[in-house]
């Protein structure tokens, strides 16, 4: 907890920012607890960033360490860019959650436990030989021991629900207590419970009773000595209307906004269930009023095929997956490149190779996106920096795909997909517009006639009279669009396809410096969801007086046209990535600069301190 001058306001202490982690069994409802705390935090006016971290198993065996599900939020009055490295308050619903998560708790931090869950069976499953609540193993922390199970059971008793149902209300009791600790309201949560259990009013009432009991517990005389209420100031942000946005929502709404901006009447989204990309299919399935058709295909290949077929027919084809599924779509991407049709491909990257760790984030599909196809098959690659940026990147992907008649891969990841942050809501009238012009004029037409500026071929909707034509994966004659095996023509077409993608660099913003100045000792170059951690780390380093800048790439193929010149103005370039070193190799290959890697492949996002330490190490070497 970053503590400013401790002031007592209505008996509460003030904190600039706080990191809370809710942890329990995957059946304990920790994700909804975290989400609801986030909602109330947002309504309280704090800035925040969240990190849901859950196991791949839907319901892992109760009480086991591999079944622990956690949700972390950092919130505060200053610019919050990451979910935080070290935890101030850990809510551990059972011994497994405690043993897995306590290592991230700050010394002096608070851990809240449900004593009833610390029975012999659960302790054994978590690998505790002795009850940690009874010895001094937690002496470095403030341990708040409550019998949450009994307190919840007492609170829900009047509603006459089963003991199993009562047990499932424990998370609401814990949420109530945490909301009290930070002076948050409960209204949004009560409304949500009423909606969620609309058909089971008794369950809704019991959950609300548990929530209120947790809150009242903090409020009343039962409050133990260490349980203190806090005030976290509102964030100073640009005026406007705000909401929370997850990466999935950002992508879905951005695709709809892109559809509107393009003037295309219909978006066909084809996907196949895969963690963590399925959420996008679910979200878009509810946006049918916005011209969205969703199609759950029989496999990843069919999903990409249906999306490409839709684009061929004049709609906006979009497909989505995670790394292994993108691999299956590879051949269809080749066809999209060869036939020069627009296609938006969203890759929610996860730890690999193969099945890897499906619920854990990684940035290891960069090579796959940029180079992962047979033959010379270039396409555009973009990556959002934050959950809010997912909205803008999705719009940009639609713009590039339709303007350049090309597939565009958007590299999101499992972290962005589920994380949430506050978002200033744009007005549609303020969003970019890029109306698509389908070719309807038969005079002088052939299907591979290129726009002299963009090198894009015309987009013709089947159904257009007198423009009947045939396209396919066979090489085409540059001048007629007919099948051609001519050697020189193939060289010419290969170059045209490469030039078309390279030319997108003229149509995207020049690379800026996110923090710091455009030359100096050290540039930290990142891409994707590591934006927040890198930015905070560079801010800390600059506060320490170090000559370091943060450069963040949203365009990964092609790179912005000034990127090489910019990077060459720094003595050293460090590239933090959640992979084994991919962007760093692309930069070295493209610009012949000695960029250095900083890799992390644990399935967890970079902590700010990890990057700050790396900066200090390099800066120290230099000095």
């Amino acid at each position, binding site marked *: 907890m970053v503590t400013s001058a401790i002031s007592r306001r209505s008996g509460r202490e003030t904190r600039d920012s706080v990191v809370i982690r809710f942890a329990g069994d995957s059946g304990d409802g920790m994700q909804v607890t975290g989400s609801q705390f986030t909602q109330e935090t947002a309504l309280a006016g704090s800035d925040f960033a969240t990190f849901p971290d859950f196991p791949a198993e839907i319901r892992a065996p109760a009480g086991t360490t591999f079944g622990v599900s956690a949700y972390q939020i950092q919130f505060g009055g200053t610019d919050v860019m990451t979910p935080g490295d070290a935890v101030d308050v850990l809510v551990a619903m059972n011994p497994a959650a405690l043993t897995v998560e306590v290592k991230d708790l700050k010394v002096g931090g608070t851990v809240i436990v449900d004593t009833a869950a610390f029975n012999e069976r659960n302790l054994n499953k978590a690998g505790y030989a002795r009850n940690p609540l009874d010895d001094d193993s937690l002496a470095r922390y403030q341990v708040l021991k409550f019998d949450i199970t009994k307190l919840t059971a007492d609170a829900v008793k009047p509603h006459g629900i089963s003991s199993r149902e009562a047990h499932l209300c424990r998370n609401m009791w814990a949420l109530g207590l945490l909301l009290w600790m930070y002076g948050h309201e409960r209204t949004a949560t009560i409304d949500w419970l009423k909606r969620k259990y609309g058909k089971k009013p008794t369950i809704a009432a019991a959950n609300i009773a548990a929530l209120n009991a947790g809150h009242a517990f903090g409020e009343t005389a039962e409050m133990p000595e260490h349980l203190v209420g806090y005030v976290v100031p509102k964030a100073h942000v640009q005026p406007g209307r705000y909401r*929370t946005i997850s990466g999935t929502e950002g992508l879905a709404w951005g695709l709809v906004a892109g559809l509107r901006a393009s003037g295309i009447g219909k978006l066909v989204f084809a996907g196949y269930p895969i963690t963590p990309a399925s959420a996008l299919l679910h979200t878009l399935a509810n946006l049918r*009023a916005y011209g969205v058709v969703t199609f759950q295909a029989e496999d990843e290949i069919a999903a990409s095929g249906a999306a490409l*077929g839709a684009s061929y027919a004049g*709609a906006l084809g979009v497909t989505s997956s995670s790394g292994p599924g993108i691999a299956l779509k590879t051949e269809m991407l080749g*066809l999209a490149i060869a036939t020069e049709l627009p296609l938006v491909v969203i890759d929610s990257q996860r730890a690999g190779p193969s099945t890897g760790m499906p619920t854990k984030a990684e940035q290891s599909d960069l090579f796959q996106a940029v180079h992962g196809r047979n033959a010379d098959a270039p396409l555009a690659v973009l990556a959002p920096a934050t959950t809010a940026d997912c909205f803008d990147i999705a719009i940009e992907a639609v713009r590039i795909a339709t303007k350049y008649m090309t597939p565009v891969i958007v590299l999101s990841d499992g972290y962005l997909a589920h994380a949430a942050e506050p978002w200033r809501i744009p007005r549609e009238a303020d969003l970019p517009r890029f109306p698509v012009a389908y070719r309807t004029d038969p005079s002088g037409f052939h299907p591979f006639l290129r726009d002299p500026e963009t090198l894009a071929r015309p987009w013709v*909707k089947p159904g257009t009279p007198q423009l*009947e034509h045939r396209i396919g994966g066979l090489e085409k004659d540059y001048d007629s669009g007919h099948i051609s095996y001519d050697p020189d023509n193939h060289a010419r077409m290969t170059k045209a396809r490469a030039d078309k993608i390279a030319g997108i660099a003229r149509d995207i913003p020049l690379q800026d410096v996110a923090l710091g100045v455009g030359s100096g000792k050290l540039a930290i170059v990142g891409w994707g969801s590591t934006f927040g951690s890198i930015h905070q780390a560079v801010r800390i380093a600059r506060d320490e007086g170090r000559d370091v800048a943060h450069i963040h790439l949203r365009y990964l193929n092609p790179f912005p046209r000034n990127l090489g010149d910019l990077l060459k103005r720094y003595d050293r370039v460090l590239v933090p990535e959640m992979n084994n070193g991919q962007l760093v190799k692309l930069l070295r290959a493209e610009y012949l600069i000695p960029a250095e890697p900083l890799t992390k492949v644990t399935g967890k996002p970079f902590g700010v301190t990890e990057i700050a330490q790396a900066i200090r190490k390099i800066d120290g070497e230099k000095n």
Partner: protein
Amino acid sequence: MTVTTVTDAQLAPKDYASDQEVRWCPGCGDYAILKAVQKACAELAVSRERTVFVSGIGCAARFPYYMSTYGFHTVHGRAPAIATGIKLANPDLDVWVMTGDGDGLSIGGNHMLHVLRRNVDLQIILFNNEIYGLTKGQYSPTSRRGTRSPSTPQGSIEYPVSACSFALGAGARFVARSIDTLQPHLVATLKRAHVNKGASFVEILQNCVVFNDAVFDNITAKEAAPDAQVLLEHGKPLLFGTNKDKGLRLKPGKIELEIVTVGGNDVSTADILVHDETNRPLAQLLAALEPPFPVAMGVLYCNPAVPYEQEVHTQLAAVQGNGDLDALLNSERTWEVTP
């Protein structure tokens, strides 16, 4: 680019031909199929601009290049998926999938299964020559056991799949079979497939003159045909043979067909099974017939249901909401930050 002013009703078969030189081997059965499709299109007066031929990879997959309609030559086995996307984007397009036994039943078998069970409104024409032609003659999933090929020098040991049995098993609601050389029958069958709304599956026995020549002679040769084929007609008895004196009936007490001679052993025409296109179990029995039984030709099964893409668009039309993007972005909880 051919600029035409004639209406679709005036188009002749040749008007459905593109300006591209047809490059199948001389004598290939595909020529006859191309001719039949162009003739069916002319007789149905289909609109060239609204028609799309989609194919995968293989000899059959070259088909779209030879039509003056829209055409999309895609990747191996995936044409059903691409065609589904086309119909989702624009249900008004008239879409044909041209595929082969390798394309449609081997690498694309999964897509074939799902496009049929979904009942997407397509004409799916499977050219079955029981061989991989474009890759120079390897045995295919429909090759008969014992087929000697470059990859099976001692003869193939796999049991073949029956295209029509597969289609019925997948839930296809229109399943038909014809032969490249049976021109009037083929044209009529293609027209039936086109009229049917939903996934219309047509298997065409097609002779590969180079790698599997005469493989269907036991069924299609002039002298063999009357006994080797039973031509299906809805509501008509399942009679065949030169004198139409042979018939199919259910073997008493069994769920299997037997061949009987009308007039012999007290068998009359009334004892012969009558073809009922809407009877799926009968279609399954007919689809599985192979020599020494006559091979069933014509519409084995036709029992239409609302096509997939039409149901999708019915659901779309039922969705409430005016598509107000600002309302979407401001849905659920928002809060105002004031200066």
